[in-house]
């Protein structure tokens, strides 16, 4: 039996590595995918373009303008002076927000009334918009605190010019400390997730299309007339793809560490072990799809219907916390979600076995179940 399995593995490896072009296709897409994801997926906001419209034009309003210019979150890209210009800038998406200081700004401050600053935001991209509004509020509030402190000191001076000035006033500062990803780089969060995703898509698709291809071009019949038994065929067909998956894992992890400088704080061995557990799921799903498809087009579409939700409901970019309860329930039986947790834990938090064992158990159970189901169906289809 083992000899026959070995022969299929050999055939499969020769078949997939024979053509330089195909060899290329096994390893290039994962790396390209990682590079595109790594560079493109960035939800951080810096140097957001804003328009500065100062209708007051006093030292006070210019101070506020300086505060916006000094912030690393903003870059003043336009200085409109009419409403039409504002409309135009926003319609063409040339700026993300318009800060408008209304006339009477300095007068209101002086009289102790609340002076208004209008912040007009392009809400098209709601995520960017809420970050922009957050940062704009912080700049304005910072300026307000400064104005207040000055006023206070002035008053104290006016009341008792001779007495020792206690310029200090009660205030509360927030000191923040960020764990695991101190620079708040979204790359550190996304790239370990991409690693998980790439392993799934590559192995699932290769298994599904590889088997269906034999059916479609008729070579499956030829295999069937040999003494190879279905279970042997199945093992022989999946092991090469598992190997490809593991090589891709090493490749992609190296790129993540070397090119993107993602911290790798945990154990590589643990990552490998968890990946093998996860491969059971993705190979099992690929096998399952191959049993329900007759053409490669069908297999491709079915894989899409499996990988897309699995990927989207894994917490990759969109936090599961935000999802409605029904969808959350689906996300919690999604093996990719657990694998994603493990990969991120190992990369960023240096999580060890004691932290990830519940996820590992889930992966093992789920993988065994889907692999068993597919093996059963595979055998039934061939008999």
């Amino acid at each position, binding site marked *: 039996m083992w000899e026959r399995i070995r022969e299929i593995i050999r055939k499969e490896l020769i078949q997939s590595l024979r053509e330089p072009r195909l060899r290329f296709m096994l390893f290039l897409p994962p790396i390209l995918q990682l590079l595109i994801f790594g560079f*493109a997926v960035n939800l951080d906001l810096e140097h957001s373009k804003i328009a500065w419209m100062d209708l007051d034009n006093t030292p006070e309003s210019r101070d506020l303008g300086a505060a916006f210019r000094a912030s690393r979150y903003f870059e003043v890209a336009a200085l409109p002076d009419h409403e039409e210009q504002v409309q135009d800038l926003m319609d063409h998406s040339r700026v993300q927000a318009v800060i408008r200081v209304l006339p009477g700004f300095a007068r209101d401050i002086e009289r102790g009334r609340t002076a208004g600053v209008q*912040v007009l935001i392009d809400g098209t991209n709601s995520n960017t*918009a809420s970050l922009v509004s957050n940062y704009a509020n912080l700049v304005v509030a910072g300026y307000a605190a400064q104005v207040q402190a000055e006023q206070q000191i002035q008053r104290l001076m006016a009341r008792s010019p001779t007495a020792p000035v206690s310029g200090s006033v009660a205030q509360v500062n927030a000191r923040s400390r960020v764990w695991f*990803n101190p620079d708040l780089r979204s790359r550190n969060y996304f790239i370990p997730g991409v690693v998980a995703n790439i392993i799934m898509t590559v192995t699932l698709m290769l298994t599904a299309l590889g088997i269906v291809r034999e059916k479609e*071009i008729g070579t499956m019949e030829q295999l069937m007339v040999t003494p190879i038994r279905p279970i042997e065929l199945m093992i022989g067909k999946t092991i090469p793809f598992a190997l490809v998956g593991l090589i891709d894992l090493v490749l992609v992890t190296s790129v993540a560490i070397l090119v993107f400088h993602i911290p790798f704080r945990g154990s590589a061995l643990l990552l490998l072990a968890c990946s093998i557990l996860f491969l059971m799921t993705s190979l099992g799903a690929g096998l399952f799809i191959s049993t329900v498809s007759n053409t490669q087009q069908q297999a491709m*579409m079915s894989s899409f219907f499996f990988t897309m939700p699995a990927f989207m409901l894994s917490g990759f970019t969109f936090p599961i916390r935000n999802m409605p309860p029904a969808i959350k329930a689906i996300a919690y039986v999604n093996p990719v979600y657990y694998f994603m947790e493990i990969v991120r834990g190992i990369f960023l938090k240096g999580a060890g076995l004691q932290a990830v064992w519940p996820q590992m158990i889930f992966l093992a159970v789920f993988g065994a179940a889907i692999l068993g189901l597919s093996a059963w169906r595979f055998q039934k289809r061939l008999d």
Partner: protein
Amino acid sequence: MNLRRTGAVMHKEMRHILRDSRSLAMALAVPILMLLLFGLALSLDVDHIPTFIYDADRTASSRDLIEQFRGSKYFQILGYPDNYDAIDKAIDRNQILLGVVIPPDYSRRIGAGKAADVQLLIDGSDSNTASIALGYAQSVVQSYSLALRSQGQNHKGGGPSQTSPPVDSLLRVWYNSRLESKNYVVPGLIAVILMIIGSVLTSLTIAREWEMGTMEQLLSTPLRPTELVLGKMAAYFVVGIVDLSISIGCGVLIFQVPLRGSFLLLVFTSCLFLFGTLFWGIYLSAGSKTQLEAYQMAMLSSFLPAFMLSGFVYAIESMPPVIQAVSYLVPARYFVVILKGVFLKGVGLDVLWIETLFLAGYAAVVFFLATRRLKQKIT
């Protein structure tokens, strides 16, 4: 070029599509699945941040600050531990995202008119959520600090009463006034859906003919490459249009995404984009000997860029300059600008003509390339 022969290829391809009812059903289900996933499940909005507050001071003034956090809809206080380690452990176990620590000398320092520090500990792994959460927490502390100061001021100075801050920002949001994720995700999604249907599905059609050997049969007919390309394209164009209608219909009727611009412009530009993606799929297909290869190429060159580099979820302005330059080569980028412009901003051709022109140019160039490649392959 002969219209009758083109029609015959289209007819043959349509029968292929209709016969394989499962593939057809899935092709039509793609937009529904994508819209449901993105429209219902995916939201980057941050609220109910799970929080622990460790109050080492335990005085009236520290409780006053806690009250501010409790009153904000952005925070959900899960517990009040009495030591630092509990926060530590809870962050490690993903139980909370934010820990607020009020130091033991908090009220004493405030009473003495000095600055008191409040520590915010945050799990930064998800940097986007973390920075938004941090922003909310900072503004809670900041506005509390401002209120505290004005109180002190009135108390000490007795000047003009001022309980509100001296400067305040008045926020106004255009185009998507309630900042709903779905309003920007759903229009952009149409580009991704058309890309999947257009390129990925078509990329298999000619590769299949090569792989199965039926290409030889087609070649022995008087059919010319242009006719083959157009005929194949026409069949999948019909599928694309059906998917487009499903996407627009679901987006507007179910997800209530506002369609503020011209419907006609939307359909016109979508057709242009669809032409481009279909020809691109055929171009890839003509050069691939196997369906697996064609599929891989299509995923890499169409779906991935459309998903990542089109500005559909991930803002292009935040990418490094080189990637931004690459994104100008991605047709989906222009289409996403058009989609968001027409849906949310309600602008017309006067603003979007450059993008529209680019889509038309792209379709023409790719058509030419696809036909040429097929010719080369055949001869």
